[in-house]
């Protein structure tokens, strides 16, 4: 009742601005919702256990029987995926509807999902894994062997309840996040690579950006050098990201990296190839304009009275900046950081040139001194999305996994931002009464 009344009050107010604004907000929320829904739906395909059919059809007059998951179907034909006895992505078959004799969903079908992503289907009424495995060996083609320990799950796929389906999907999703590519398609190294890269980028760009902004705002004033720098920043912000990649390749990888290798007399290039540090530096350059602009604006909002107060108490300019201006501008610095992270976490193109690879043998962080390996190549979620979506050998599943990786990337970006935003809000709380 109250809501109806309030709605009526709102509608009676003839405020066009309000309606336009509300419309814009609604539209943005809708777009966001659609994106998240699409990602979720597509990603779910990678993890939901598919029901398995028993198909009988004629092929050249011979009746064939096959246990397979139906991947796609239309009026003329079906695309199914049967057991992948050898390699992942080898079980696909096309069956014309005209040839189809029957399609049933036997209850006793077992599906074994292996760590490398393969799925095997067979029929068995067994109740224990060992018996089921024995039954599998009788149905497998000659020469097949597999280690039962290499399983993700063995389920009677056609008998799963909804809760069971969800549980299995979540398990598989978790495994996807936590495992590496050598065991099927996992994105853990890419996840680690992304987070480490973004953090390293932040560590590099913030001091540089803040110092630049300080110089621009607190020291340079209206000097010509400041004007030139500001213009340069504005222009840099508009340069396509891939050009930063090229720039990083030339300057960091070939120039500085190559030079370092020559200086240290490395036989094999260590710094002269793409690596974590060069990528982080490239991203730092990419996000520098954002940081400088946001920080400078934040510095501009620090009340002049505070600077004067500090100076009048006998603080030098540096002390004023350090003890008063920067602490008050902290929320703005975090805003700058948030913008930088948002910009950097989504960039893939420049990274491909300076260090992100499809498959890296080792993580950039480990327990081995110096723990953070700046010269190592690394994997990146953005790169994974790209690889899975475009160069995968098992298109239906890889595409779904690309969506899953994309979703994960989104979660990482949102997570990093949320952390920064919550810190910022806590700081704002403290300086709320400070009217500007």
């Amino acid at each position, binding site marked *: 009742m109250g809501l109806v009344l309030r709605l009526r009050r709102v509608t009676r107010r003839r405020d066009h601005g309000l309606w336009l604004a509300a419309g814009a907000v609604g539209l943005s929320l809708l777009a966001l919702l659609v994106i998240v829904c699409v990602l979720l739906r597509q990603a779910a395909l990678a993890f939901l256990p598919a029901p398995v059919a028993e198909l009988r059809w004629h092929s050249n007059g011979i009746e064939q029987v096959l246990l397979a998951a139906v991947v796609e179907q239309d009026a003329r034909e079906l695309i199914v995926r049967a057991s992948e006895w050898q390699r992942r992505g080898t079980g696909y078959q096309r069956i014309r509807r005209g040839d189809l004799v029957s399609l049933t969903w036997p209850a006793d079908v077992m599906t074994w999902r292996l760590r490398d992503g393969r799925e095997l289907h067979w029929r068995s009424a067994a109740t224990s894994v060992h018996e089921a495995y024995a039954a599998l060996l009788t149905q497998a083609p000659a020469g097949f062997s597999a280690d039962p320990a290499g399983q993700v799950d063995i389920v009677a796929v056609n008998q799963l309840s909804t809760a069971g389906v969800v549980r299995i999907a979540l398990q598989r999703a978790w495994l996807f996040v936590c495992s590496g590519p050598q065991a099927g398609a996992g994105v853990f190294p890419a996840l680690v690579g992304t987070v480490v890269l973004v953090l390293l980028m932040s560590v590099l760009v913030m001091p540089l950006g803040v110092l630049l902004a300080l110089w621009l705002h607190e020291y340079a*004033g*209206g000097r010509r050098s400041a004007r030139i720098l500001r213009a340069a920043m504005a222009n840099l912000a508009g340069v396509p990201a891939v050009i930063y990649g090229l720039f990083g390749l030339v300057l960091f990888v070939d120039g500085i990296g190559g030079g370092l290798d020559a200086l240290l007399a490395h036989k094999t290039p260590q710094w002269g190839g793409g690596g974590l540090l060069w990528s982080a530096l490239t991203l730092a350059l990419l996000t520098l304009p954002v940081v400088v602009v946001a920080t400078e604006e934040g510095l501009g909002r620090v*009340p002049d*009275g*505070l600077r*004067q*107060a*500090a*100076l*009048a*108490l*006998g*603080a*030098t*300019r540096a*002390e004023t900046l350090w*003890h*008063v201006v920067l*602490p*008050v501008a902290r929320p703005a610095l975090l805003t700058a950081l948030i913008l930088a992270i948002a910009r950097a976490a989504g960039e893939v193109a420049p990274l491909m040139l300076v260090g992100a690879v499809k498959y890296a043998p080792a993580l950039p962080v480990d327990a081995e001194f110096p723990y953070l390996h700046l010269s190592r190549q690394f994997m990146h979620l953005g790169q994974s999305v790209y690889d899975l979506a475009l160069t995968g050998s098992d298109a239906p599943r890889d595409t779904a996994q690309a969506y899953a990786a994309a979703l994960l990337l989104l979660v990482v970006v949102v997570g990093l931002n949320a952390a920064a935003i919550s810190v910022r809000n806590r700081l704002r709380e*403290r*300086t*709320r*009464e*400070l009217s500007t």
Partner: protein
Amino acid sequence: MSAVEVMPAQLLAGLELALQARGLSLDYADRRALDSVHLQVPSRRVTALIGPSGCGKSSLLRCFNRLNDEIAGCRVGGEILLFGDDVYAGAIAPPELRRRVGMVFQKPNPFPQSIVDNVAFGLRLAGIRSRLELDDRVEAALRATGLWHEVRDRLAASALQLSAGQQQRLVIARALAVEPEVLLMDEPASMLDPISTLRFEELVVALRERYSVLLVTHNMQQAARVADYTAFLHAGRLLEFDTTDHIFTNPRLRETEDYITGRMRETPLR
């Protein structure tokens, strides 16, 4: 205009002078703000500086602690003496000078920190690290401004939670903590409510015991209430300096009279 012309002879005879401006002039990038100002601020007295908006009161105040140095394109000519030492000659570095000459601004500007940290700010800058000494001096400064019993239970609370009047007294405490010799105040009560203003005026009168105060105010009654001496600044020139009693009952110049009685000038000065 020399010192002789702006003030009666013998007015400050026998008094120690805290601050002296001699032939002081100040130019901003595009305009002259002060023109050969001669001002003498006696020690342990309250001197009020009055004059219309834009006449250069704040600029003059900022000369005394060299805060004008921070303004690009600002040039100062003439001499300023702090107890006889030339402030601009380089004998005193600006941070040192500003510790000796404190300043309070129009808008209460506590740092967004705790009450204690605000008052201790200048002390820490001065290199005092001992917890004990800091506490002592913070308490002394807060007591001097009458704020101690109001905030003693919440010293760690944010200074921004205080009322405007309390904030202004906190800011004064912050300035007093470093024990300056002179206190410059730039329209310090213009943002305060009447009761806070009275409290503030009480405080200024009390400060007179230990400090030399130079107070800019737009509130003529305030100048009349708290100041021993009053200087009238007009269009960048110091026109009249006299005891407050004299300025407010029988000023020497028509300009001063017109200003303090709120009269219109048909013929603006120059």
